[in-house]
């Protein structure tokens, strides 16, 4: 099987899972699809090296790209005095509340939560994926959980 075939086979098998992770990282359908596409495109040049076990590398690109995009977007934000006409929906259920609580987290804390508690990575794996220390993973996870609880998700437990 050629490298290209192996890559396309991986994409077909894992795209759905990657989209789920990306959605948790971005909170937007469009951003999630875009993020996954970029991560896969960036993985192509390294495919020969990662073909046997591509998941950690692709996940690393996915999370770091998510954090990087948030930083870039933050500087591009335009502040306005006019309130958007779209009415703000009240949280209808826990799912909506979680989405809003995740959106309020800083990007790195959000990524830690997604990798640690959705992907079930260890602290070491999470640190490696994000390029930060294990201690930082611990502190970021602790702070993020505290903020989630403060935001009304009282029933959340790790």
């Amino acid at each position, binding site marked *: 099987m050629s490298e290209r075939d192996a890559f396309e086979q991986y*994409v077909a098998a894992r795209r759905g899972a990657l989209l789920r992770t*990306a*959605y*948790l990282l971005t909170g937007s359908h469009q951003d999630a699809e875009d993020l996954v*596409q970029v991560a*896969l495109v960036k993985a192509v040049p390294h495919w020969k090296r990662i073909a046997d076990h591509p998941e950690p590398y692709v996940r690393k690109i996915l999370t770091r790209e998510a954090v990087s995009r948030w930083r870039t977007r933050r500087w591009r934000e335009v502040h306005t005095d006019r309130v958007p006409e779209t009415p703000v929906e009240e949280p209808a259920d826990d799912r909506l509340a979680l989405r809003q609580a995740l959106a309020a987290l800083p990007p790195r804390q959000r990524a830690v*939560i997604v990798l640690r508690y959705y992907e079930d990575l260890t602290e070491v794996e999470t640190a490696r994926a994000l390029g930060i220390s294990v201690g930082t993973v611990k502190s970021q996870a602790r702070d993020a959980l505290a903020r989630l609880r403060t935001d009304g*998700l009282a029933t959340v437990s*790790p």
Partner: protein
Amino acid sequence: MTTLHDRLAELADEAPPGGPLPELWSTGVRRHRRRRAILVGAAAALVAITVGVVLGLPGGAERSVPPADVPFEQLHLPRSVWAPSEWADGTDELGAPGRLAVVSLATRSSPDGWTGVRQGTEPFGVSAVDGSAVWLDLPDVEPDMLGLGTLTLSPDGTKVGYSVYDGRRLSGWNVYDTTTGETLRLRDERQQVLRGVDAFEIAFSGDSRYLQTNFSPTGSDGSRDDRLVVWDVETGAQIPAEGTGYYWLPNLGSGPQGVVWSRGGRTFTFHPADMTRSSVEVPQRVVEWSDGPMLRSSAYISFGDRDRDPWQLRAGDGRVLDAGIQADDLLGWRDESTVVVAQLPYREVRFVDVTTGEVTASERLELPENGERVFLTPVYAADLWANELVDGVEPPDAHDPRFNPWGVALGAGVLVVAGALVWWRRRVRA
């Protein structure tokens, strides 16, 4: 109580199913090629910039060009002549040096490739304004061909005259203007190679207007076929001052106007502007004649009665003057009655009043610490003997440009920054 994993998985169920996929593999390959090309280009640019910085930084401090219109009273000759640092920049980098007090030759070093050194004997000048020394990057100079009689300075310090060679054959003369940096090329259109008994000896007239040369107009090497020719250094015109038929180049003298030379006991003054000539005759054979600045006084050095007798300094009326040293050369005039006399090789200088015969002042010209690199007895701007001499100015050291510490430090800094940038990019972009 549900776990956070359960609730995140429930939220992830909202994830999009994903539309049709573009050609991710092809897109990835194209993107990789594009990035690699950009990185290679950036690396090449970085290397080019680093090399440029390392090689391009100036070797020394920038030199301000002294203005040409400095009052005459502020121009001085140095008691000691310092050659520039062997690695110092020259007029190619620093521009015209302004009025000079001295020209001479010294050893200069320049890089030859990355690590080699090329050494040669090259001309330098000492500023009459601030005493700074600068290498003279004179056009058309044949390496190591300049020497005694082939490099000279005008009395007012504004022009450097030098012989130009095609290989080892004389092809003409150049006059470099020290105030503008322009060069006038003096060539005989009839012959590309100039021959003559003393074709290599040149000197400026006392008014700095004419360059005195001697060569054969027919290209003959015959001992009586050369003649004295002066060149107007403003127009480039060639003016014969004396016909052929004389056995030897006349002894060149000096005066405030025209061209002065002596043959036997007769001294001639030729005025190129109106092509007139006058002469005076003394009983002795004249080594060198000099008229004072107002033409009210004259002095000359005469041969002894016999060849082995010492030369004698005399006033224009023939009186013998005792300078207290052996009178080998008349350098100029301090005022209209005080002639400046030197004993070669220009260690002792005396100022002698030709009216009273008294030595009114003396100077000792010191060899500088780097004098071993100076190959030619300095040629002084004769007019400046009218002013007080000043101490020489030791030139600043110029470092070896092959090992420019600032360039190396800057280059290393650029590489460190570039490395840090690459490391950061790799870290951020996974």
